[in-house]
């Protein structure tokens, strides 16, 4: 499904005046023809001397500014269907109440659809909401994904284990095992130290957090994939984390 982009109706450029009872007619070059928004008002460039009456347009209200309602769709894989059902309340409440969007789950297409409405103040909130749902669908907890709505500077990164090093069979499994650690210990350690959330889905690794922290976590995971023992990785991330913590 393609994203609907804002279509702005483009006003026709106002004609420059051959109304000049002038000596010469100006040749309109195509360059000068600019596509102007109607909302901007008449900000026209006239090449001729003595600009005559400019068309005055009154300021437009924000209601009219709004285009048609936009919509995003997030598909939900089968293994996340039940968790979605369980947490549905927690999912749609912040979207609807805080972001003032409309959301529904299309059962046939198994998509979560989010739409703007009249009450929506910020157009960017739609992106946030879709990111939030996407994060949940990837495997993150609702509370963790909620951070995406609350904080602007959080990002989501995904990569594959095989991207780091081409591993096959047992090596791959071992690598994944190294990342996870016994009972998820290593993964949690990295999460705690770097203040990120990590989702390990077979060979895919998803990291949620701020940019610096994602980098730290990624480095750590890559080291683990490449074969360094967890203790070493701990040492490294600890050093890096303390350094970054000191800075603030």
């Amino acid at each position: 499904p393609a994203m609907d982009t804002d279509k702005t109706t483009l006003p026709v450029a106002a004609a420059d005046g051959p109304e000049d009872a002038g000596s010469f007619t100006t040749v309109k070059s195509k360059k000068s023809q600019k596509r102007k928004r109607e909302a901007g008002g008449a900000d026209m460039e006239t090449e001729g001397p003595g600009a005559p009456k400019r068309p005055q347009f009154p300021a437009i209200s924000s209601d009219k500014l709004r285009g048609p309602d936009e919509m995003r769709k997030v598909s939900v894989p089968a293994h996340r269907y039940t968790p979605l059902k369980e947490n549905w309340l927690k999912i749609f409440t912040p979207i609807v109440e805080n972001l003032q969007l409309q959301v529904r789950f299309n059962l046939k297409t198994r998509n979560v659809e989010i739409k703007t409405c009249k009450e929506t103040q910020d157009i960017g909130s739609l992106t946030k909401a879709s990111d939030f749902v996407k994060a949940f669908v990837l495997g993150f907890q609702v509370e963790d994904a909620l951070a995406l709505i609350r904080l602007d500077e959080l990002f989501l990164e995904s990569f594959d284990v095989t991207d780091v090093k081409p591993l096959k069979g047992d090596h791959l499994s071992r690598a994944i095992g190294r990342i996870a650690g016994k009972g998820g210990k290593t993964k949690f350690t990295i999460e705690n130290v770097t203040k990120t959330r990590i989702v390990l889905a077979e060979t895919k690794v998803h990291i949620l957090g701020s940019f610096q922290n994602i980098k730290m976590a990624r480095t750590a995971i890559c080291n683990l994939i490449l074969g360094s023992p967890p203790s070493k990785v701990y040492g490294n991330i600890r050093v890096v984390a303390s350094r970054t913590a000191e800075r603030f």
Partner: protein
Amino acid sequence: MATEDMWSVLEDCVKKINDNTAHPENFLSLQDGAAADFTTLTKLLYDLHKTEEPAEYKGSPLVQLVVENFDEEQIWQELELQNNAVMTHFENATNEALSDEKLSVLVEEEDDEENSVEAEGETHDDDDEEEEEEENDDDDDDDDEPPKQSKRMAQDEDGAEGYTDEDSDLDFDVDALEKREKQKKEIGRKGSRPKVVPSEVDDTFFKLSEMESFLDDMDKREGKEDENENELDYFQDLPSDDDDDLDLNDILSAKKKKKIIAKSSRNLKYKDFFDAVDREPGGDEDHSDGEEDNKDKSWQEGGEEIDEEADDYDGEEESDKHIWLMSKVTFNLNEDSEGEDLADIFGGKTPSSAISAVKSSFEKRQEKMSEKIEELEKTALADKPWQLSGEITSQSRPENSMLEEDVEFEQTGRMAPSITAETTLQLEDIIKQRIKDQAFDDVVRKEKPKEEVFDYKKKLALDHEKSKQSLAEIYEQEYLKQNQQKTEEEENSAHVEIQKLMDTLFLKLDALSNFHFTPKPPVPEVKVVSNLPSVTMEEVAPVSASDAMLLAPEEIKEKNKAGDILGDTEKTSTDKMRDRRHKKTVKRIKIKEKEKRQKLKEASGTGENRKLSKAEVAENLKKLTKGGKTKILKDEGKDKALRSSQAFFSELQDQVKSQIKSAKDPSSKKKKHKEVSVSKLKL
């Protein structure tokens, strides 16, 4: 009463006593026989007396003295019973006798007459006297009444034994009376009855015992005169020394107790100075002159205090009366008369006339007034007592006199709380209340605060468990922390300074006042030190001197764990070997890693067609030339020739020319070796 019987009994007793005491040296050893005799005698006399006792005496209930199997103490107690009972009666009797004005004593009477007078005046029974005498005898062992003893012994010489005891008895009673009347009278007066002990050195003028007693007296007097050193009795006629001797002589005569009055210097005669040579030392002419009567020094101190005399004027009169009764000397004139006139007047008058007349109440009042006036004058003129004489040290005042003084002074310090019953009760109340409230002042155990080393870099603790907080919460907390820091920084700097000052002040106050004060543990301070020479930090003026940096050398460069850094010449062989081994291992590792990398690269590379980097090329070249099998062709100075074609051709031309020359020249065959080769030119 069968007085004749009694008399005979008494005579027997006396005889017995004399027999037993004839040899006093026997008493050095235990004389049981004599003791038994004396005991029986005592009993006899006591019984005798008791039978003769008149009814009104109210003596002790014991009719007979029980002596069988009683020891001395018990016998004595029995006697004492009797004595105490009749004492009051005797006192009354003597009082009557004293108050009896009709009695008079004639001066010129001998002892016997005196005694007879006394006998008349008294109402004593002979029995009583002799009983007391017996009691005295019983007390041979102790010396309770030395004066009596002495008198007795003195009078034993004279042979008038019976009556001397009377004297002694009377003296005793009189003394007691005197004491009661005059409280200020000093005891010393009584006690200074001299003893006359005959010694070898004695003659008509000198008696050893006299001298000794005189010296004793003087000592005593000196002891008392110290108090009244500066006191002058302005109205007193000065006694001469000879008078003292004379007085003593009189005393020692013992027949008469002469009262010696300080005479005026006009009327002194030989008699006053010296004893009559022909007379016995014991006997004495009467000093019939009433005017020249001298006072008995033993009754009066030498430089006597006027106040004492003034006070004792009345009393002395009384005592004088007593004394007359005993001695023939008339009366005791007061020396603190208000002037010489008075003395003269008194001297002129006959003492008897002055005193025998009953004084009118007006006169009595006048006398008292004059006494008081004299006393006041005395105190006014006299030296102030030590209490009023300003600063005084302990040497200037009598011993322990401060103890009797009530001193007033201000106390500036807090007095220790006086513990009374009330305070104890208060305390107990407080204690009870505290126990009820369970508010004890227990000492809290002080624990030394653990010094936490301030981690300059706090190590992150690794948590291996899934975090309880969600990501959102974590970021939220971080955000809040940052905001809080901002708000903290906005505190008023003035407030911070004030807080600091108050902290230091309170710390000092706590140190002074808190009983359980513990000082704060030292906090490590962070101080930034710049590593400049200390001179520049301290002084403004540049002084060519110290290079002392503020940082210690160890702080500039860390000390090597191994120890001192050794130079090449300082190293021992082991050190050198160690270094060599270390170098070799390091090198080995490097090489291995390099090879590994190389292999990897080759493995991952595209094969032989791949492009070699510059470094790799140089590496290969080096490897090849190392073996010595290959040789690198180098440009040797001919390079310049190749730069331009002109240069090249000119070079070529030159070379050809030289060749031709050499060919032409037969000697230059050597040069044929030099050939122009292509390779050299590198075409």
